[in-house]
Structure formats: structure tokens, C-alpha cells
């Protein structure tokens, strides 16, 4: 909240401009009123000729133009301010998201984050484009008017001074009373449209059970119930603006009354002064009332402002990197994991005290039931998560000593759902290697990954655009694109996170061939589901509930670890039953 306010007030030039335009607007209102009155006074009471009012008419026209220009400029400044702030907020959010470690980006809150970047940022617009400029206007314009009124020989200024505070006071009093209620009602409103959405989404189900037609009545009833409930709240809200209206019109009436009495009974004020004050009075109360509506739109943004502030306040532990350079094409590192622990911020899962060493070119399989921490371990090895405790060493150096960029050129990570970006197949493959990779190299990588057949069948070949989120490709084809990336990159460490799950027999066989081809020159760590992957592994890490139960070759484990043996046989037994 304060952070965003600071953002606005840090723009000193903009703030200065807003204040300037407010002062000018105030001045122009006074001058405008002065000349309107002067002209009427001249022709009405002084019986002046038309020549005498030509100059005042000219000035009045100029002043009216000036008022419009200041109004325009003031609003424009507000809009610019909002744009600047929105840009900054988005930039801050992007930087924050980019720095996030993997855990937060995977915690299934993508929807919320997108809505923060898009909707919440859009919603703060009115806070900066109308609320802040209005606050400044209200702080300045009434004061200027009041000063002008005080120059006239009447108590009207005093009347204004006394009645003015009632407007904000009542606003606050009523605001406090209705706010809570109104907010509750807003929630109900959201729930109400949620209910309608619920019915639409469940329409298939309703139809299957032959219940769809009856819903019309239900919608009708809930609509009218909702209307009645809302009107109760709105009545109060309208009553509040009724009160404000009363205050301002009665005050204006009071001023008119005072002026008349002075004019008629005491005869101690001129028509000029009286009319001048009478023209200014509505402007005075109008700008006070405007504050109310500005508050209203400001409040509308509060939720969004809060949402962004919360998002920015969330702390994340970043991953530390060093400066040791790893040249491209270096041999695979020896990996040493000592006493590594990891705990997520949310939930009670943790990895406990892991000790593992992986030699260069070894094939390691990580096995274990769902939720045993397989993917978390893979993320830690990849440098996507920082262990809460313990040590990871690559070639006897801590991972955090390496340069981030050169570390990531060494690894490939292929998951169940490789992400394809909007762009051509070639662009999607190229993202794996240097951007400078030749088309020939890209095509070769595609071929090795078993993509050539599909590419040839496409009209535009390797330059075919694959749409948003890689739609239009089957699961197997996506995996092949991911493999082609790895072929182009030639990493020394490959991490497979169950890439063949959910694929059909035939596709899986092809992928397996590509995967073993890819694995020839690298260390490979696979989260494994399948017996044959495990049987081939040099080392199996058997995880359960975040603990390393056993490590070794398949045969050794079968012989020595009862739990492992039971698990393997139980699964096979269940299959043949």
C-alpha cells in the first residue's frame, strides 16, 4: 500500500504538475466567476452599453478555454502517472517472478500470478489516474475558492468553512457504517455469479440427469432474492449520498439566504459580491463531493493494490551462484550430495539428510512411491532449488561456486510436460542450444530425436508454427522436440523426469531409443517408473517419504533390501493377478 503511494509521490515532476494544474484550475474558476458576474452586473444594474462588456466577454472566453485546457492537462498527467506506475509494477513483478526458485513457480498458482500481472495491475489504474489527482484537486481548489469568497464583504466564507467539514465527516460516518455491509454484499454478488457459472458448467451433468429445465426457476429465484438483498444495502448507500446532497444544497441555500438578507434588509452588500459568491458556492461543494466519488474509485483499487503489495512482500529464497566458469563440452562432473535436507515453505513434506555420490557417465535411477521426493531431488541436483541444509558438490566444488550461466549450459531437464513456446519447430529446438546454431545442426538434432518423419509430413516442414503451449502436437511429439533440444545442446548432465509416462507403446519405444542415444556421452539421472530403466541403471536411489531407504544396483537391492524387494514383487504380482 505505502509502497505504491511512494511510487506515485516519487514522481516529483508529475506531482508538481498535478499541484500546478490544481492551483491554476482554482484560479481560473475564480476569474471565470468574476467575469460572468461582472458582465451581468454591467448590463443589468449599471446599464452599460455593449461596447463596455466586449473586453470582459473576450477575457471570459479566454478563461473558459484555459479552464478546459487545465482540466485536460490535469487528467492527462494523471493518466501518464498511472501508465508509469503500471509499467514499474509489472517490471517489478516480472523481475520477481524471474528470480523465483522453481518451487513457487510450480506450486500451481500460475492462474493467480497471471491475474495479478494482468487484472490487478489494470485495476490500480484508477487509483493513480483519478484518485490521486482528485485528492490534490480537493486539497487545493476549495481553499482557493474559500480565499476568494473571503475577499467579499460577507459571512458566506465563514458559512462555507463551518458547513464544509460536514461533508467529509458524514462521508466517514456513513462510510464506516456501510462499508462492511457493502463489502459483504460484494462477496455475495461474486458468489451469486459463481452460482450461475456453476450451473452453466454443470449443464452437461444436469442434462444427463434430466434436470436442466428446472434450473430456470432456480435462477429466477436466486436472482430476485439477490436483488432484494442488494437493494437493502444500496438503500443505505444511497441514503448516504442523499445526506451529502442535503448538506451541500442546504448550505448553498443558507448562503443564498444570507446574501438575500444582506441585499434586501441590511443593504450592506453589492449585487456583484452576492452573485459572485452564489456562482462559486456550487463549485465549492462540488469539489468536496467529488472527493467522495474519488474515494469510491480509490477503494475499488484498494483490493488490487493490496494484492500486488502482498505479492511483492512475499519473500523467496534465491539460489546463490558463483563465478567459476564451466567451459562448454566439459566432461560430466562427479556429483557429491552430503547431508542435504530440504523443506518446502508450505506443506509438511521434506527431504531428510540425503547422502549420494554419482560418478561421471553413471546412469542413476530414482525410484519411490508418489510424494517420496523424487522430483525435488532432481530439482536440487539441477540447481533449481537451494537445499535448506547440506552440501552439493560438483567436481569437489560447491554448486554455488559455479557461474549460473555456464552451469545451465551443462544440463538438460526433460520432464513429463516439456513446454513448447509459440514459434516454429526450429525455434523451439534452437532454444536448447546457442541461438547461433545452424539450420543444419537443428535439423540433425530433430532427426536424432525421431522428428524427421513428422516434419516431412508438414507443409512448412521445420518452420511450421506450433501454437500456444505447443498445441497441435501430440504428447510424444512434444517429448521428441524436447529431446531434439537436448541433442542440440549436448549437455554433460541429463535429468529425465518420467518423460515416457502416458505415451503409447510405439511412441515409447522410439523415445527410448533416442534417450539412450542421448545418454551415451553424459551422466543421466532418471526418475523411473519402469522396470527396464531400473534394471539398466548403475545405481538406484530408493526414496520413501523423503528419506533415502537404499542405494545400489537392482540385483543388490533385490537381494539385500526387503522393502525394495516387496515393492517390486507386489507391483508385479498385482499386475498378474
Amino acid at each position, binding site marked *: 500500500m505505502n509502497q505504491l503511494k511512494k511510487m506515485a509521490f516519487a514522481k516529483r515532476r508529475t506531482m508538481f504538475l498535478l499541484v500546478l494544474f490544481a492551483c491554476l484550475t482554482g484560479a481560473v474558476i475564480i476569474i471565470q466567476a468574476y467575469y460572468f458576474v461582472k458582465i451581468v452586473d454591467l448590463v443589468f444594474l449599471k446599464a452599460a452599453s455593449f461596447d463596455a462588456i466586449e473586453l470582459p466577454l473576450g477575457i471570459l472566453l479566454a478563461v473558459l478555454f484555459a479552464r478546459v485546457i487545465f482540466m485536460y492537462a490535469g487528467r492527462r498527467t494523471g493518466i501518464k502517472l498511472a501508465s508509469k506506475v*503500471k509499467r514499474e509494477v509489472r517490471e517489478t513483478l516480472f523481475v520477481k517472478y524471474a528470480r523465483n526458485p522453481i518451487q513457487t513457480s510450480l506450486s500451481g498458482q500460475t492462474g493467480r500470478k497471471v491475474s495479478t500481472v494482468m487484472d490487478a495491475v489494470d485495476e490500480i489504474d484508477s487509483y493513480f489516474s483519478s484518485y490521486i489527482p482528485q485528492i490534490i484537486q480537493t486539497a487545493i481548489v476549495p481553499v482557493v475558492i474559500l480565499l476568494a469568497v473571503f475577499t467579499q464583504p460577507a459571512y458566506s466564507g465563514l458559512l462555507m468553512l463551518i458547513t464544509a467539514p460536514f461533508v467529509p465527516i458524514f462521508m466517514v460516518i456513513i462510510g464506516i457504517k456501510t462499508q462492511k455491509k457493502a463489502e459483504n454484499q460484494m462477496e455475495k454478488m461474486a458468489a451469486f455469479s459463481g452460482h450461475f457459472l456453476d450451473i452453466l458448467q454443470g449443464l452437461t451433468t444436469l442434462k444427463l440427469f434430466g434436470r436442466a429445465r428446472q434450473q430456470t426457476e432456480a435462477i429466477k429465484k436466486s436472482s430476485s432474492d439477490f436483488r432484494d438483498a*442488494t437493494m437493502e444495502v444500496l438503500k443505505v448507500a444511497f441514503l448516504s449520498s442523499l445526506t451529502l446532497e442535503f448538506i451541500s444544497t442546504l448550505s448553498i441555500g443558507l448562503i443564498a439566504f444570507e446574501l438575500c438578507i444582506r441585499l434586501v434588509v441590511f443593504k450592506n452588500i453589492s449585487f456583484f459580491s452576492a452573485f459572485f459568491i452564489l456562482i462559486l458556492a456550487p463549485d465549492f461543494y462540488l469539489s468536496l463531493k467529488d472527493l467522495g466519488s474519488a474515494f469510491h474509485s480509490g477503494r475499488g483499487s484498494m483490493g488490487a493494490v493490496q494484492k500486488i503489495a502482498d505479492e511483492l512482500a512475499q519473500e523467496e529464497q534465491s539460489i546463490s551462484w558463483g563465478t567459476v566458469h564451466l567451459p562448454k563440452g566439459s566432461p560430466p562432473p562427479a556429483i557429491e550430495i552430503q547431508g542435504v535436507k530440504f523443506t518446502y515453505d508450505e506443506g509438511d513434506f521434506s527431504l531428510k539428510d540425503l547422502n549420494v555420490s554419482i560418478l561421471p557417465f553413471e546412469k542413476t535411477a530414482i525410484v519411490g512411491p508418489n510424494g517420496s521426493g523424487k522430483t525435488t531431488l532432481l530439482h536440487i541436483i539441477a540447481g533449481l532449488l537451494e537445499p535448506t541444509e547440506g552440501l552439493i558438490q560438483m567436481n569437489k566444488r560447491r554448486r554455488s561456486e559455479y557461474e549460473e550461466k555456464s552451469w545451465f549450459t551443462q544440463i538438460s531437464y526433460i520432464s513429463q510436460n516439456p513446454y513448447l513456446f509459440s514459434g516454429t519447430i526450429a525455434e523451439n529446438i534452437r532454444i536448447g542450444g546457442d541461438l547461433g546454431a545452424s539450420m543444419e545442426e537443428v535439423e540433425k538434432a530433430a532427426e536424432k530425436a525421431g522428428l524427421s518423419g513428422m516434419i516431412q509430413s508438414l507443409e512448412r516442414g521445420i518452420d511450421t508454427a506450433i501454437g500456444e503451449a505447443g498445441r497441435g502436437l501430440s504428447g510424444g511429439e512434444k517429448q521428441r522436440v524436447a529431446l531434439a533440444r537436448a541433442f542440440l545442446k549436448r549437455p554433460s548432465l541429463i535429468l529425465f523426469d518420467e518423460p515416457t509416462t502416458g505415451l*503409447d507403446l510405439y511412441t515409447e519405444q522410439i523415445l527410448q531409443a533416442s534417450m539412450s542415444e542421448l545418454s551415451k556421452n553424459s551422466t543421466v539421472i532418471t526418475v523411473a517408473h519402469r522396470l527396464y530403466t531400473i534394471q539398466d541403471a548403475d545405481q538406484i536411489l530408493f526414496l520413501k517419504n523423503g528419506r533415502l531407504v537404499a542405494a545400489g544396483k537392482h540385483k543388490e537391492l533385490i537381494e539385500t533390501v526387503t522393502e525394495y524387494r516387496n515393492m517390486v514383487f507386489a507391483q508385479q504380482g498385482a499386475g498378474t493377478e
Partner: protein
Amino acid sequence: MKDLLLVVRLVVIEKKDILYTILFGFLAGIVAISLFASSGYLISKAALAPPLYTMTVMLALLKLCSILRALSRYAERFFSHRATFAILGNLRVSFFEKLEPLASGILQKYRSGDLLSRIVGDVESLQNFFLRVFYPPIVFVLVFLSTIVFTSFYSVYVALSLLAGMILTGFIVPILFALRQRHIEQGIQSERGELSTEVTEFLYGFRDLKIYRKLEERERRLLELSDLYIREQERKEGLANFSQTLNTLIANCVSWAIVALGAYQVVTGKLDGLYLAMLVMISLNVFEYSIPLAAFPVHFEDSRRAAARLFSVVGKDATMKLEPDSEIYNLDQDAISIDINKVTFSFSDHTRPILNQVSLTLPAGSKTAIVGPSGSGKSTLLQLLMKMQIADHGRILLNGISVDRIQEENIWKSMNVVLQENHFFYGTIKENLLIARENATDEELEAALTKVQLDGFTLDQAVFEKGENLSGGEKQKLAIARTLLKGSRLWLLDEPTSSMDALTEQNMYRHLFNQAKNDTLVLISHRLTGLEQMDQIIVMDQGMVVESGSFTELMEKRGYFYGLKQIEKSVLF
């Protein structure tokens, strides 16, 4: 525009509230202007030192005007909002009534939720139609016309100036900007869409982007897109600002013209100077009623777009109706036989057929399992059976009658369906179960819950929207409980137990098969266990039937099914 007329028709249902709104809106406007006019007149009169009693009357009138104005405003607000909510209800009902009979294929298409929530949003944004588009211009015109008529008694020139002001600020400027607005709005929507897509990709592809060192590049791209989007928004607001400014400028010019003309007429003796202040006060305040019209284009455009989108959903897609000349058959209450004859089907936006020349025969009372990798067309086949999609070629016969000749309602009535995704409504467990059998007693409902091993649940336990507070397994159990209650004779089950463990699954199947003893049953299964008891297993791949036969037959054949079985064995978790 045609769509908006449909909306207007729904709006005018609330005749009484609309009439009140306009009446009080007009009253508030006219009283406010009288208030300013009379105060201007009062001051002038006072300057001429009139008898005190005229002053008293005038002042009393002034007070009365103040109160009347405030009260009218209140009434206007009250009735306009009440009308708005009533209209919202009408819109919902009418839209639902249009959507309900549509073929389920359309619902399937829009199930993604995104479109449905857009529909809800569009319906909601149409509530502004009455509040911001429909009645303010009416009130504006009424107030202005009355003011013009009133002023014309004093000065025709003043009246004509006001008329010109009314036409300019009320019609010309808003229409001019409405046209440009439309253009800009398209730009905003497309920039917004692009940014939103890129942000989503950025987050979904985070891991790959991070490893491939593309985060900074994407970040820059995002910022560029955000700048473009903000620029478009700024253009829109700039335009709105410009239009408002232009409106104010015109209003000011008219006020100025009135002063100049009035002064001239006073000087030349054509107008009593007493009324000049009054006319000035009127001109300074009447334009307050044209201010809301500056925002009119935006709201008009929003409403138009929302209406167009809404009615395109319900309008364009032809419903899959019975052919007019075909006789209507009903399914009777016996077990149903299914004949599928060379059925081919593809979604309109895919070229590859989802189902390719599929032929199957499922005798009444038989139990059939369909297995195969994802994307092999299993679920689509089930949708064709449910007449939620219509085959491109080939025929589907239920009890020897083509599904084309049976009404959807009738087909669904005879089916017990568990889909992969089953919808649960906001409410209670009981309400969600009663959908299946309206008159079921609590005991029957509880018995059904016990059968699906949900005896831990109470009937009045809350269910959130889409069953968000239920686990995948619980949802599937609840869906099965619903079919158990419904008790129709054809069972179509699409992976009904995929989120349950093996033991629970066995239990579920036991209950299902027990109740479906004499019924026809089709089960799509992701697991190959427990298929020994099926009469027939159909293996599908890439839209075609690769193998079929009983469990033992297929195992002995050592073909595709055997291969699948081997894989299943090798899967450890």
C-alpha cells in the same frame, strides 16, 4: 446492433421501474435547474430591493427545490438499480433458456470454463446497459428540452444556443468518439491477449526457460508487450479525456454565448436584465447532465460487444435436432443393445479422424471394456453413444434404432453415465445426489454413500463449486453413487475409478457389476486388471479397433493387448 435490440427487449420487461427511474431522473434534473435558476433570479430581484414577502416566498421555494431534488435523486438511484438487478435476472434466465436446449457438443466445446466465465462476465457487464446506456440519454433529452422550452419564453437566442449545445454534447461528440473508440478497443483486446498469453507461457515454461537461459530475454519481451498494452490503454483514456474535454469546451462556449447574447439583448432592451443572472445560472448548470454522456460511447461499445458475443454463442451453432420428417422413437426400459457400424468422426478443427471406421456389436446385457492409449478415441466413442457428438459417417443403433431418431433426453434417461470429469454443484452432498433421483429418501441416499465407501460423509455436508473440496477419488465415488441411485439400464463408464487405489477400485466394481447384472455396460479402463470378467475387451489405438475378444483370447493371441499387459507389469509405481 441486432443483438442489442434483443437486450432492449429484455430491459423493457421492467416497465414500472424504468418509468419511475426516468420520472425521478427527470424530476431531479429539472428541480436542480429550477434551483439554480431561481437563485439567480432571487439575487437579481434582491438587488432591486423588492418587498420582503416576495423574498420569503422565493427562499421557501428554494429550500423546497433543494429537498425535492435530493429526494428525487434518491428515488432515481433506487429505481434504476432495482431495475438493473431485475434486468440482470432476466438476462440470465433468457440466456440460460437459449443455452439449455443446445446440443451438448457445444457445451463440450466450451467446457474449458474460460468461455463459460466469459459468458457470465458478459451477462454481468450487460447490467450496465440500462444504467449507463439506456436511460441517461432519455433523461438528458427530457431535461434539456424542458429547459430549452423554459428559456425560450425569455430569449429565443438563448434557447437556440442551448439546443445547439444539447445536440453537440449529447449526440455529435459521443457518436464521433464511439466510432474511434471501437477501433482502439480492438487494439487493447489484442495487446492484452498477447501479454496475457506470454505471461502464462513465462510461468508455465519457467523451468525450461531457466535451464535454457531464456528468462531475461522473455522478461524483456514481456515488458515490451506490457508497454504496448499500456500504450493502447493510454490511447483509450486519452481519447476519453479528449472527448470529455471537448464536451466541457462546448458547454463552456454555449454558456459564454448565452452571456454574450443575453447581455446584447439586455443592452438592446429585448430582455429584462432581471433574468440575465437566471439564464447564466441555468447555462452553467444544465450541462452537468451531458457529462455522463461523455462516457456513453465506452459503455455502449461494451454492451454491444457483450451482446454480440453472447448471442453468437447461442445463435450460430446449429443445434443437433432431429430431422423434421423422422419419426421419433423411444427406448423402452429393457437392457439395451448397441450396434456401431463403420463410424468415422473428426472434430471440425482437426484433420486427423478421431475415430476411423469403428464397428462394434454389444449385445443387450453384455459387459464390454474399451482399453487403449490416451488419444485413441475411447472417450469420443462414448460421446457418440451419448449423442453428445454426431458421427460424420456410419451409424450407431441402440436397440436397432438409429440414435438420430431418438431424442437426446430419451437417450440420457436410459443411461447411467460416469464421465472422466463429473460436475458437482455448490450446495450439499444431498443436493448433489438428489439430482439423480429427486424423490429418494435419506435412507436411500445414505445407502448409496455406504456402497461407494463414503459413509464418512453426512448428507448435509457442504460441497463447494465444482466440488473443489472433494478429492479426485471422492468425486469419482460420488459420481458412482449418483449412477447407483439413478438406476437406468445402460452403463457408460469413462475411467470411473482412475483416482482410486486398486483395492477400492475392486470394491467399486463389485457394487457396479452387482447392480448392472442384467444391464448393458461399457467401461473405459486405464488399468488392465480386473478385465477377466468382461464379456468382451476392445483394444483401440489411433481411432481404430486393433483387437477385440475376451481376456483369455487376447492374452493367448499375444498381440497388442498382451503388449500393454506386459508394460503394465513393468510399471513400478
